[in-house]
């Protein structure tokens, strides 16, 4: 069944059970998103997509709130803009946005002040390089939860990572703080694919950024030189596929 409601003063007709974000996009209305991804379950964590709905006490996240008949929605009211600006300023003061040009552009759009919170403590973390496939730099993590979701029932059913810690200390982590290879991780890299900020990165891209050449990177995994036991063995000659040439 179709419903009709007002979005930014214009009458909009849409199918029932659709989110405000979907309907806005169908109608060419721009609502910014950060944690939302079409391939993961929306959880309204980052709140950048909030809109003002008449009669509601607080701003509503458009990625999960369904449209209702007769709703009056403002996607860019002063209250909305102020909220988005503050969210961006808080993000910028606590994390490394250097690899997130989309958010940097939003900062400009919303006139966000990078020095709004000069005393804020930044969430800093060493680069975790503990497996052959990808590196994790949680200084760049904004806790969008997409990686956790694709590792769970949104894609891989592997459940290797989750939120770890509370409040300011919250970080994405493995159970018991184990290294990635020691967890149930299948190294599929789906987490890397949905990471919006470059906190998760393929190992080879990371090494290239560090200034290594493709040649140098390739040599990294030439495999260990094998102990030769070939001589004097009249059985099948093993190993040889791994010998250096």
């Amino acid at each position, binding site marked *: 069944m179709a419903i009709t409601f007002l979005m930014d003063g214009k009458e909009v007709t849409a199918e029932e059970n659709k989110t405000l974000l979907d309907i806005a996009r169908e109608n060419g209305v721009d609502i910014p998103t950060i944690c939302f991804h079409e391939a993961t379950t929306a959880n309204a964590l980052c709140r950048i997509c909030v809109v003002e709905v008449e009669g509601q006490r607080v701003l509503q996240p458009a990625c999960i709130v369904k449209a209702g008949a007769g709703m009056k929605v403002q996607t860019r009211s002063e209250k909305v803009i102020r909220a988005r600006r503050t969210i961006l300023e808080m993000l910028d003061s606590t994390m490394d946005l250097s690899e997130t040009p989309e958010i940097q552009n939003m900062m400009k759009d919303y006139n966000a002040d990078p020095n709004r919170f000069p005393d804020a403590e930044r969430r800093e973390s060493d680069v975790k390089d503990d497996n052959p496939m990808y590196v994790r730099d949680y200084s760049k993590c904004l806790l969008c939860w997409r990686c956790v979701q694709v590792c769970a029932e949104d894609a891989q059913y592997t459940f290797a990572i989750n939120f770890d810690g509370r409040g300011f200390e919250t970080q994405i982590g493995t159970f018991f703080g184990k290294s990635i290879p020691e967890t149930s991780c299948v190294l599929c890299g789906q987490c890397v694919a949905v990471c919006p900020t470059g906190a998760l990165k393929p190992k080879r891209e990371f090494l290239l950024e560090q200034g290594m050449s493709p040649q140098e990177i390739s040599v990294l995994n030439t495999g260990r030189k094998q102990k030769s036991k070939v001589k004097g063995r009249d059985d*099948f000659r093993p190993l040889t596929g791994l010998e250096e040439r």
Partner: protein
Amino acid sequence: MIKADRVVTSTCPYCGVGCNLQLHVKDDYIFKVTSPFDSPVNHGNLCVKGRFGYDYVYHPRRVTTPLVRRYLLEGKPKPEGREQVFAVSTDGKPISNSLISNLWDWLETDWNTALNIVADNLIRIYKRDGSDAMAAYACAKATNEDNYLLQKMYRAIFRTNNVDHCTRLCHAGSVVALQQATGSSAMSNTASQVIQNDVFIVTGSNTGENHPIIALQMKDAVRQYGAKMIVIDPRRIDLVDFAEMWLPLKPGTNVSVFSAMAHVIVKEGLVNHDFIEKRTEGFNDFIESLDKFTPEYAEEISGVPAEDIRKAARMYANAKKAAIYWGMGISQLSHGTASALALINLAFLTGHIGREGTGLNPLRGQNNVQGASDMGCMPFHYPGYMRVDNDDNAAKWEKTWNIEPGGLSRKLGLTTTEILSHAREGGIRALYIMGENPMMSEPNLNETRKHMQQLEFLVAQDIFMNESGAFADVFLPATPFAEKDGTFSNTDRRVQRVRAAHAPRGQSRVDWQIICDLALRLESKLGADSAKWDYSNPEEILREMGNVNSDYAGITYDRIDKVGLIYPVPDMTHPGTPTLFKESFPRGRGKFHALDYVPVMEEPSDEYPFILTTGRVLEHWHGGTMTRNSALNEAYPEARVEMHPADAEIHGIRNGDPVKVQSRRGEVILRVTVTEKTSVGVVFIPFHFAEAAANLLTNDALDPQAKIPEFKACAVQVFPAREDELLNPDAVLNRGRY
């Protein structure tokens, strides 16, 4: 942040799922792989091999210069024996510390020299011994176009049908069974239809590791769409965690369990009479054969409780839409054909075939094993499964290839396993291997090695000097998926584009061009009419094939530019065929087959008390040519044998201990993983690792119809070994999930 010079859309080179890839290229180097979230096959999901396993393309061990043995380059007589040599002399001097005859040294050369040597030697043998001395292995990793041309070269120039590939080693049993019962030989439905199933059976397939993206869809089917999964497998694979039931049968006892399920379905009146009457034949004979297959009889043979067999049979039969997905555990047996027929009988009994969300679905292993089979790289069939012993079929190809009427051989060729076992004086003398590695993938490798040494002339066309290429006389450096254009056909029968991300490294050349160049030299040296090899692009090759093979008649590169097409595509406007057998089977009626239970060839004894079953792990691919030259090898660096804790305790073996595993044919030394993933009395070894090659142990007994070897069951003994006996003691697997 690295900005890509270009992003190239292609298809994954690993398994039959055929995931869509985007290759991000900077300075002719792929630094990242992603997948579009709206991709029809994999919805943006990839496994570790697809997302990270492309780095072998840049590995320094890759061979990118044509190589020939010293005796050939210096025009000396061929020395005795045949040496397996991995090292290459780049300066023409003997390889340092070499213990072997200098005449077997590998020397670098140019394409002209290498191809002339190949052409001269193949022609010498062909003129002396005729067509029956010539044979070729095609490549289920290469494109449809590459494979079509290889069989064309051997059929048109050498007039032999001795062309086969690894389908013989994986799903030959399923292919023969499906041909006999339905007249087709591919998955009847697409993998993505699994979410439409109410009940589905997964058997003989470790889908989670071998078709990871299909396994995700199976898990979705269970968790999000309410389907019930029945796993019938000797190993407690990860899908068991999502299954309604797990029937842990002894390896090689499939026929008893599936036939007992059929027995229950008949006995309890759960058969679909309407379907049987309208669509099948042979029902009455089949019913009679079921008498002895009581669930209790099957329990005695397989170890699966009779009550579980009853329950599974009822679940499958009572479902509105049910499907069966199977893998090598069904086909890699000396009765692999019967084993697959037992599954087909179940689908016919219940009518779970010919509709969406049902089906008989053998999950094909290689990225293009379906395609290589479609392209006629099989000894009994031209492209499109047209029998070679049929004059009408042969005439069509004679016309296409500009060959005199009656010129093509009507004689069935030899299969993969037969080609090598016929390598001797008076048998196969020259073998051309495109991208296969029989020295890892054949059963009973000690025997295989002897056969390899019996060959007079061996050509390897590959990207690495693998265990088989190291036996060759000439090595032609080909290109991996990232450096060529063409098509792959996935397990869903979806024909998809492969696109070059950059030019071939070094002097390496794309396979279809190597074949055309060689074929032209052969024709000119033989003074033969040309079968036409002057293609200007791979699409012309596919079109030549599609003009005769109606399944591919409506496939053009333009039409499959974005998402591929599922064949049969009989004309240029046809939208493709995701579900087969809706109206009828290609052979008319589906044929029931009465079966008998036959045990595996080698049952456990006092001397060899364990059953060895072999397979794969998530991080590696087959003989390891690609994955062992990749960072994937760091993720899974050593061979392990899995043993059940109860067996380990009896033998005083702890997790991580080195052991010697011995069969009647060979032995390997490797570490143990003590795990309940395997059952009591069954040990498991993946076959990727040259230093502990599982196929030294496996039995080369063949299925009489499909000629597929019994990889899935042989008898072994396990002895404690010392750390210093391990061939690669520094490599230690330390992964939480294993």
